């Protein structure tokens, strides 16, 4: 539905398993709708041109730059943001991936972190057996200015290894 005068579009977005109706300009990016219309501010904006990856979210399980996608394009897809990773009644129980980032000091200022988390979440779901070198390749998709990347790679690798160990024990 498009309003010709103001170019407003009514869209339905499935975010973290919840349906949201949003009335927004068709030029509005997915990241702006997530952050400013739905107030899911965990996803960040670092460059607005698809390089830094701070805005990475999962769209139908695949990591996507939410700054390069219009919100309208995400209709009908399942969108997941960093807010979906943690658990518990208060939503603050850290997932194994989040715990690994903390244990390895894989974040300092924390601004790029949600993007790396969603990148890793999507990648490990697809490639649970990824080697450390393959993880490094994927980590190279996003920018971090604080850590020098080593501890991000180690956190994701540590998480993957722990999941594999847990899988074998079952």
């Amino acid at each position: 539905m498009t309003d010709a005068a103001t170019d407003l579009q009514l869209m339905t977005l499935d975010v973290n398993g919840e349906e949201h109706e949003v009335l927004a300009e068709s030029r509005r990016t997915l990241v702006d709708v997530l952050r400013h219309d739905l107030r899911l501010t965990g996803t960040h904006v670092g460059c607005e041109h698809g390089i830094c990856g701070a805005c990475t979210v999962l769209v139908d399980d695949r990591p996507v730059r939410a700054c390069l996608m219009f919100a309208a394009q995400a209709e009908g897809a399942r969108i997941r943001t960093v807010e979906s990773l943690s658990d518990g009644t208060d939503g603050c129980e850290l997932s194994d991936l989040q715990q690994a980032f903390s244990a390895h000091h894989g974040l300092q200022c924390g601004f790029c972190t949600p993007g790396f988390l969603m990148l890793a979440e999507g990648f490990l779901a697809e490639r649970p057996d990824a080697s450390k070198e393959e993880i490094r390749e994927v980590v190279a998709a996003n920018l971090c200015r604080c850590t020098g990347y080593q501890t991000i790679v180690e956190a994701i690798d540590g998480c993957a290894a722990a999941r594999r160990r847990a899988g074998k024990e079952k």
Partner: protein
Amino acid sequence: MTPRSTEDRLVGRSVARREDPRLLTGRGRFVDDIALPGMLHAQFVRSTVAHAEVTAVDLSAVRQVPGVVAAFTAEDLGLGDITARLDRPLTEFVPTAMPVLARDRVRYVGEPVAVVIARDAYAAEDGLEAAKVSYAPLTPVTCEDQALAEGAPRLHDDAPRNTLVDVSLFASEGIDAVFAAAPCVVHVDSRTGRQNALPLETRGTVAHWDDREEQLVLETCTQVPHQVRTVAARCLGLDERAVRVRVPDMGGGFGLKCVVGREEIAAAAAALRLRRPVKWIEDRKDALTASFLAREQHYDVRAAFDAEGRILGLDADVVCDMGAYSCYPFTAGIEPLMASAEMPGVYKVPAYRVRGRAITTNKAPTAPYRGVSRPQYVMVVERLFERAARELGLDPVEIRRRNVITDFPYTGVNGITYDPGSYREALDLCERTVREEGWYEKQAAAAAEGRHLGIGYSCFSERTGYGSTAFAQRKMEVVPGFDLSEVRMDTSGAVTVTTGTMSHGQSHETTMAQIVADELGLPLAKVKLHQGDTDRITYGWGTFASRSITVGGSAVRLAAAELGKKLRRIAAARWDVSPEETECGQGCVRRRDDPSMSLTYEQLAEIAYLKAHLLPKDIAPGLTGTAAFDVFNDGTFSNATHACVVELHEGTGQVEILRYVCVEDCGVAINPQVVEGQCRGGIAQGIAGALFEQVTYDAQGEPSATGFMDYKVPTAHEIPDVAIHHLETPCAFTETGAKGAGEGGTIGAPAAVLNAVNDALRSTGVELDHTPITPEAVHDALRRQRTLERAR
């Protein structure tokens, strides 16, 4: 007093960061996460030319754009200028008046000319496109040679030859004779590229007027909240009380956010004018072109050595391209004065002469980026040692060994007294590590195959914990240095701690809490740090110059000790003993003679607040401890040696880092994991400057890098893992024994990388002295060399 037994101490342990849970779950609150009712959005009309008279600014069409609420020029807002000053004569320092919005003149591409306020950020950008600014172009000055040329166009009327700072801090008597007689004189002419400190979060602010508090509230991502308050109050004509600066979570800063930006003041002015909240979030293009840049410097330095490789003298001429304006509060003096004061570094240099200049050009202004001149002069001095070693046939590590300071305290030719460090030990351990890992054999094997492996070192110290005394020597109009803290205990026995420092990734919520928890014998969870609020913190100088743990950490420890004293006085009065007969520990005050006699902090807090009638007359109700800390000597020096192993690919000109080793000594590490994080992150930024990042300008002053396609920020592909070894020489005069750890990585990396590259190039006869060492630079140098060889 030992509130905690050694094994229970939190200082020295890598405890989990307090910041992590909220940042990992997306519950951090950064400036762009703030939304206030009725909030409007600001964007800036920016100059499209580097140097011009502004003849007209027409915003009438802007105001017609749907969604635009208002648009203001400098004239509309009538704001004061931002002017940073040094207390030096005009022959040494010329201040620049930086208008919040340009009035009749623009001095760089990206300079803000007008502000557009709209109902959302999209409409604000629509508004920018409708702005009409007319210019009468002036000749742009885009490089050092143009700036210093006879008859060069002037950026600022008071600054002949575009020179803002020209200071000769040292000139040892007889230095010319030293050079004339020296058996070995080497020379390095080095230029470093203009960089962006590049916090992933760009700058931004949310400003609103609070009618009830009669205050302008500026929620802004800054490393220096109190300095922003001062400038905002001055520019807007408000009492400082009427400005409250609050800092949300911050996505990095690295120095770029330790100066006051004009956009935050303009947004505040608009919020006052419209009486509605105004948000400004810088986009990446503006962050790359129009915010504060850094690092572009030129060093022309000679060093004299005796036949055994002992340095006899250093003679330096430093020119720093500071761009269009001095930054507040540091001024354009920050870079040349840092280089001039500290260049002799870790070496015993008997004679020293230096001239330091800051020039102004039609480029975005600069801020003191992580390291401040030290990455550059360390690189130059380390190049000089390598070059001397080659000339004298000495091993490059051995020549350093013969020259590093080993007897402390040592007062250098620069008049600075260095406190104890491990310069020699760090160098030895670093070399041993590289040797034991077999890199010298690998280098020889590679050479046999015609491949170019190089090993490079850098050896340096970093002055941290500048107090008021040390900063006063820079003659800034405002003199940073001290820090204040208050530790307050509530009725439940939990404490809140304030600091004037401002973490933007450095984990102060964790490390400062570790210090306080140890001092009082409290669990970490009972201690909460508050920073970045000018109403809650009496005064502070923020976070820069690796000062937070040295100065701020000392202040919080002293404040906690003051609170401890009060707790003991209350307990002692209850027991009718002297406070000396009591001690704090494990959440209570105990009697020394009978540790079974104790009062918990909760019990004491109850007396102090809820049963004050039980207090003796000479003890006031309430439980706070306050303290100030300052450093009255030259500060404390962290030190490190870095080693880098590279392979240089002749075909592509690419430099691949195969190994990176860092041996560092920052005294007592409050949280070793945090220190390692600072090292690794710093090294990554140093490598970025050494190999990748540069903002260039064309002849018209148009910046080349407007996005990350043009400004190459290294990724996990390019940044290697870093092996870190710790040495610990505690500082004698900080309250924790800690020295600063924030900048060392960035300082040491360019030198280690450049030396490694030159070692790899040894067989080709090419030497490189400029950064970034891009593939093009390597390729061009090799091609020139081949042409030269063919000509012979």
